């Protein structure tokens, strides 16, 4: 359509260069050798199977929640409540893990499904508030997020506390039958990675090839017009919340069964918000969600090396992520303006 291939590549590369330059400046300010630090982040994420496995396990929940956000964004919804939906999914998964007896296959299936249901309930609640109560999904989502988070903390120090002590470090680990099986002597759970890949592909197919996907985009473009064209706008909005929430809940269940093996207060740990940024950078296109989420997961996991080796705070990784998002958004807006797309009426 508009804009040459060159301009598009520039649009992808320029923000990375700017963010990189800003990061190097920051590292110099912190009296750290910048290239050494960047190299350490890269090594920390990818060198050796253990680290690579950790990166992939950090990637899977963000990719799954991100795929769900592609659905809600398509319907024009800012599902900021995704963080709370991850927590709700994790709570539901923990409930299943604590109560369902039997062998691993059954327990895991119920636990993962429980996560989907928990997240869908929380997403659905935001949807009802939006459709029936005319509550903006951003405020509804943030409010519901507080409720989910408080409920998780209550369960951890209350009914689900460890025998003897109530600690905010989490519940007792669940029995090993509820853990996703791992491979290669690492923490890598192939089921989590497989689920994430399948969901990314599935959401891509739904968005491209189904009436549901087209209806989502119609409602996202203009609900009033969509109604006149025979699209049930409110029902479509509800479905978007259920799918987006369900996938966020599944991400929560993957964190419980594949990473933590127990319920901790910070079970979502900002992964939902990170997924929002990933999807923004991906321009709402699901095929970019996987690679961009991997890049961010690598920075998170890799930056822990900074603390160990250079005595720098590992939150520098979060700073780099933030810089990348800001410069990408900035350049995105700038290129749109230059092409005169932003101004057309």
């Amino acid at each position: 359509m508009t804009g040459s291939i060159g301009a598009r590549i520039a649009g992808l590369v320029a923000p990375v260069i700017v963010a990189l330059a800003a990061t190097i400046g920051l590292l110099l300010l912190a009296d750290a050798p910048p290239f050494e630090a960047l190299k350490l982040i890269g090594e920390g994420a990818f060198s050796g199977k253990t680290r690579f496995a950790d990166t992939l396990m950090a990637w899977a929940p963000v990719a799954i929640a991100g795929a769900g956000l592609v659905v809600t964004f398509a319907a024009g919804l800012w599902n900021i409540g995704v963080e709370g939906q991850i927590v709700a999914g994790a709570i539901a998964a923990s409930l299943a893990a604590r109560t369902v007896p039997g062998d691993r296959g059954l327990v895991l299936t119920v636990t993962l499904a429980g996560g989907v249901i928990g997240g869908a309930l929380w997403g659905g609640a935001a949807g009802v508030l939006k459709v029936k109560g005319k509550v903006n999904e951003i405020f509804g989502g943030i409010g519901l997020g507080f409720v989910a988070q408080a409920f998780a903390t209550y369960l951890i120090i209350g009914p689900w506390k460890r025998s003897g002590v109530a600690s905010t470090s989490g519940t007792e680990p669940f029995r090993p039958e509820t853990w996703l099986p791992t491979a290669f002597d690492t923490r890598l759970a192939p089921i989590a990675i497989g689920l994430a890949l399948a969901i990314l592909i599935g959401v891509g197919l739904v968005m491209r090839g189904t009436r549901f996907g087209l209806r989502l985009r119609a409602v996202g473009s203009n609900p009033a017009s969509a109604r006149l064209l025979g699209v049930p706008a409110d029902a479509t909005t509800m479905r978007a919340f259920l799918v987006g929430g369900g996938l966020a809940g599944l991400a929560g269940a993957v964190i419980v069964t594949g990473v933590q093996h127990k319920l901790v207060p910070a079970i979502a740990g900002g992964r939902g918000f990170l997924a929002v940024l990933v999807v923004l950078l991906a321009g709402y296109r699901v095929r970019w969600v996987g690679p961009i989420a991997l890049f961010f997961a690598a920075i998170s996991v890799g930056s822990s090396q900074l603390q160990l080796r250079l005595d720098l705070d590992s939150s520098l990784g979060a700073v780099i992520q933030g810089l990348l998002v800001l410069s990408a958004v900035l350049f995105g807006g700038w290129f749109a303006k230059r092409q005169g797309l932003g101004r057309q009426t």
Partner: protein
Amino acid sequence: MTLSVEGITKRFGNLVANDGISLELPAGTLHSILGENGAGKSTLMKILSGIVSPDSGWVILDGQPIALGSPEQALAAGIGMLHQEPLVCLPFTAAENFRLGSRRSVAASTAELVETGSRFGFRLDPAAVTRSLSIGERQQLEIVRLLAAGIKVLILDEPTSGITINQRRELFAALHRLAGEGLTVLFVSHKLEEVNELCTSVTVLRRGRVVGTSALPRREEDLVEMMFEQGSLIPTRAPATENGGVVAELIAVSSGDERTGITRADLQVNEGEVVGLAGLEGSGQGSLLRALAGTASIQRGRVTIGGRDVTHRTAQRAAEAGISFLPGGRLEEGLLPGLTITEHIELASNSARFLDWDAARLRAIEAIDAFRIKGSPDSAADQLSGGNQQRLLLALLPPKLKLLLMEHPTRGLDLDSAAYVWGRLLERRKDGTAIIFSSADIDELLTYSDRILVLFEGRIIARLAARDTDAEEVGTLIGGRVTA
């Protein structure tokens, strides 16, 4: 103060909206730009007023090339535009709107508003809230604001739609006076009669290029010939079928807000009948149409379709019952910005769970041919010109309809497009489809309606058989004067 335009070119994707356009207008010229829908008029005006940047070419004011990056820069250079819908902030008072973008004190600017206004015969109350002003008064306010900003070139885009005949007279008198004082006026309109009345010269665009210039006045037939590659045809009007049953009925319906709503409206529409709604902008036409379309809530009264009570149903139920509504705000209420023609057609026509994009593309190409839409299957709805957006809306209508509701079906369309649109619409009457439409164009109402209802302040004040009335009677009634 000569305005020259040299070699302006602007592309949107594959569409060349302006293709090397050049003009030269000495100070004090009253010049018109004519062209059918999609000829490139709006794009050229947007470039001159800084809303869109050209790909190449220059705008030169008095020998100096000017930078046109934004409306602010254009205004600073001396070019101001009066938009079709005046760009005023409705909750502000007239004085507050006037002061926007100016650095002068409240007292000084208010005095300037009154003084400049009265110099051109505009009676503007500085303390009036803009929402309460008519479209014509809002225009006057905008013109005065632009003049106070020191413009040398004034662009007017379809300024006479939605204003009264008196306001039009005042506007034209003011424009003549301004031209006498050296202001260059660029006037965009579809109404050839007005162009002849106001302007002294004309440039005709076709497919983004200048295809002719002429002094005015000229015979309208000559102008039409320049605008179109072939002459236009008014579709022949078959008489209404007399024996149709009642399709829809409003019984004492009140709906909408206090300002633009309807109060206790009664209406019966028969199969194959065309009912025109006349009235000043916002006299209740929109609320009446939306009450039937199911997009507005009904406070009192009953609506029946085919004898069934449907008073409190949704737009979707209405669509299922065979009612379609083409709203006036095409992008705001009718189309999906960002989605392509193919995607629109697919949404409207296909109910399968899985989509076949190859088949969808073929259907889109068929629709583009059948409705003569200037665009490709991949053109986004918001990239199309106004007339082509209307054609796309028509292409989206279901094949079988009981009742078709339309707001300003041909607003912004040139004569040829309007005739074409009506030809397609009237074909549907053979299947018994009833049509209710509102229009600001009395000729359109008289030409295509069987019956004309005149609305005033939310009430139906007259019901006329179209063949027994004339423009004068309708025009008088629109102003609220009921003749004995």
